[in-house]
């Protein structure tokens, strides 16, 4: 567990009722985005991921209120387990009725107003980082992250060696990471 993480110290289930809502707010603030991330990667559906993250937080808060979770240390694992169950149920249900499944790979920029400031800022920084890369590096990142190609496959497409592709990819990712990280340093 991250020692800087305030949630680690939140002993919500033991809090007095008047402190509860603040502690619950903090819990949601800390965990909801992380659960959303897991859900959106697994389902590739932002709307569903938002719902799943919310459902997860509600279920966790319910358990805490009912005193079913006494050990604050186990909170992250509990959140994760709850999220995983809900995500797996969702995926199973979607497989059973694929015709009603939502469009895969929905672009992040089409998100609703629920997108918070943090995410818009990240988008802005990602765009800036991409713009600062050389065209070939942008293409290498596109083929890697969007098309899921491995360095050897990209090398073949571009007429480069895998070693060059690997090096350029890791350098480009490093640059992007540096720029996006300026957000969390502020």
């Amino acid at each position: 567990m991250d020692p800087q993480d305030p949630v680690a110290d939140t002993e919500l289930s033991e809090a007095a009722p008047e402190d509860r809502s603040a502690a619950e707010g903090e819990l949601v603030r800390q965990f909801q985005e992380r659960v959303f991330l897991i859900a959106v990667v697994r389902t590739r559906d932002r709307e569903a991921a938002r719902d799943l993250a919310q459902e997860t937080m509600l279920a966790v808060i319910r358990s805490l209120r009912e005193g079913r979770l006494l050990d604050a240390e186990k909170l992250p694992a509990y959140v994760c387990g709850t999220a995983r169950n809900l995500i797996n149920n969702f995926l199973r249900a979607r497989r059973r009725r694929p015709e009603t499944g939502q469009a895969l790979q929905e672009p992040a920029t089409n998100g609703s107003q629920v997108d918070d400031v943090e995410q818009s800022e990240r988008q802005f920084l990602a765009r800036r980082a991409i713009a600062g890369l050389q065209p070939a590096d942008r293409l290498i990142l596109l083929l890697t992250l969007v098309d899921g190609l491995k360095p050897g496959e990209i090398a073949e497409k571009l007429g480069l060696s895998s070693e060059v592709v690997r090096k350029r990819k890791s350098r480009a990712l490093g640059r992007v990471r540096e720029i996006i990280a300026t957000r969390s340093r502020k």
Partner: protein
Amino acid sequence: MDCSRVRAEGIAESYLLGRLDEPDREAFEEHLVACAACADELAGLYTLKAELQRSREQIVADAAVRPRTWHRPWVLAVAAAVLAVAAGLGVWMRLQPASGPRPELAALAAIEPPAYAPMRLRGSEDEAARRFRVAMELYAAGDWNGALPGLRAAAALDPEAPQIAFYLGACALLAGETDEAIAELERTAALGDTPFLEEARFLLAKAHLRNGDLGSSGNELAEVIALDGDRRQEAQDLLKRLDASGGPDT
């Protein structure tokens, strides 16, 4: 799972791409929920992916307008043409051009001895490191022939050490042992993404040039340019000068 493994193995990227097996996936998810730094890393990659996807058409279009030096077939065509002329006339390096200047290939093949700054090694020095250190003292004094045997011994003891392979290659090239230089520099490059990769490729281009193998030299220069590091400009200039020797599309 911990942050150092996530970083070292690119776990966040593999997770995003759905490439983790179930135990690793679950371990990463558990770690992620408890770790702000790794959650940030994944959020950054996820956003980057979405933004790349959004600009796909533009990215593909921009990349289609590549520098000429990326086109390896072109490099090969130039090299083949130059070599064909050379073969036909025997001593190709003395050829006088019908028009325009021909590069002085011997001058182009000249190299500066790669600088060497001794590194402080952690822990006790093993036999390979000791031989390397002693040989590099001779190297630093400009005694290439004196340094070679020690570097060969060090390389035999520790074939995976990129600095030994690289300086053995460089030293062989300086001592006029071009074939050995090519073998050692190729071995350096094959060790992957090390601090010596770009320099090894650049010296390989020079070594092939010295052998009159312009095709291989051009290929290595294209690799150097693609690596886009400190030698990029120099590699481009060198390719241009090869081009000036009479490429078909100039």
